[in-house]
């Protein structure tokens, strides 16, 4: 049980990385990766929201199935996630101004992060239990944090390099991500020892 959870953690965070292999959450990945500081802020906010969203959508899904309206899944999930993000923002502002200051500006951006909805839908599709779903969402968000911080590191260096005019901005960012994705592909076929 524990080893299967551990392998789920490693596979979802590294091998099947949310950006590099699944293309979820590319917009904030490209948008908020100008410096390592903002990238890690965004990454932490995503971990926070994604785990909460997966816990809540687990029960929402159970409720939908119980009421025999499972086809309302997409609609229900996106509304729950949007409401959740708003609530987290308000609660953080009240109880932890320090954390709010660190994560605050990233929270509204997360509603449009397709990774949050995507991972919630995938967890349902894969029939995960509550614990598996929590581990899965935490690991995926951790993978996002790793990817965005690594990428921000590369991008900080990119500022000092000479880049052809037409490659500036998005093109060079995408190609850099492509090369990083190539590196992440090296994990494919790697066998876990447990």
């Amino acid at each position: 049980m524990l080893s299967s959870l551990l392998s789920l953690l490693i596979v979802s965070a590294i091998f099947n990385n949310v950006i590099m292999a699944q293309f979820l959450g590319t917009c904030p990945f490209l948008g908020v990766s100008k410096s390592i500081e903002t990238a890690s802020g965004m990454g932490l906010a995503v971990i926070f929201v994604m785990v909460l969203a997966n816990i809540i959508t687990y029960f929402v899904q159970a409720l939908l199935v119980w009421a025999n309206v499972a086809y309302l899944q997409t609609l229900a999930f996106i509304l729950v996630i949007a409401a959740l993000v708003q609530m987290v923002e308000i609660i953080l502002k009240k109880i932890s101004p320090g954390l709010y200051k660190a994560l605050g500006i990233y929270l509204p951006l997360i509603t449009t992060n397709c990774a949050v909805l995507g991972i919630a839908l995938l967890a349902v599709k894969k029939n995960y239990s509550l614990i598996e779903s929590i581990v899965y969402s935490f690991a995926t968000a951790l993978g996002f944090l790793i990817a965005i911080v690594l990428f921000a590191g590369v991008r900080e260096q990119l500022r000092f390099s000479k880049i052809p005019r037409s490659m500036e901005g998005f093109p060079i960012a995408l190609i850099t991500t492509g090369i990083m994705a190539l590196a992440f592909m090296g994990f494919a076929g790697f066998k876990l020892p447990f």
Partner: protein
Amino acid sequence: MSINLKDELYRGVVTENPIFRIVLGMCPTLATSTSATNAFGMGISVIAVLICSNMVISMLRNIIPGKVRIPAFIVVIATFVTVVDLLIAAFLPSLYEALGIFIPLIVVNCIILGRAEAYAAKNPVLPSIIDGLVMGIGFTASLTLLGSMREFLSSGMIFGYLIAPFKHQFILMILAPGAFITLGLTLAFINFLQSKES
């Protein structure tokens, strides 16, 4: 108010192309451009959702209070996405299998909410429908172009038809790195053309 369809089409496909000019909706672009067929299927689904949501949002634009407009738009969009999702699952099971999670994720596609907020919420019904159509065509055309390039480079085929029988297959192009690199180079090429023009 008369609408010049040709000008509108030019706006959707060239000057305000959602993928190449405004760079919105990266996730589905990267994920569903593995082949021309998948890309085209995704494009058509987005056109359907975009036209319907633009139409309904434009009809309701004077009824929805400004403060709750974003959640209201999302409900409208999610309804049509669910319809499209169920239709594809019923009639095109192989496409459903290939696009997978990215059909329900049309809900959070920035292009659709972007058009609702920027256009449909301020304009009458007919222009909004046309705006949805031309933006959808722009999205579909660019997505299909990317899909064709990746499919061609990896297997020499476009839409499943063999164009150039390569001796070796360049599998990388249909994998994740190929998606990023193809889109990056295409954007760079478009920037290059633009700099030549001016």
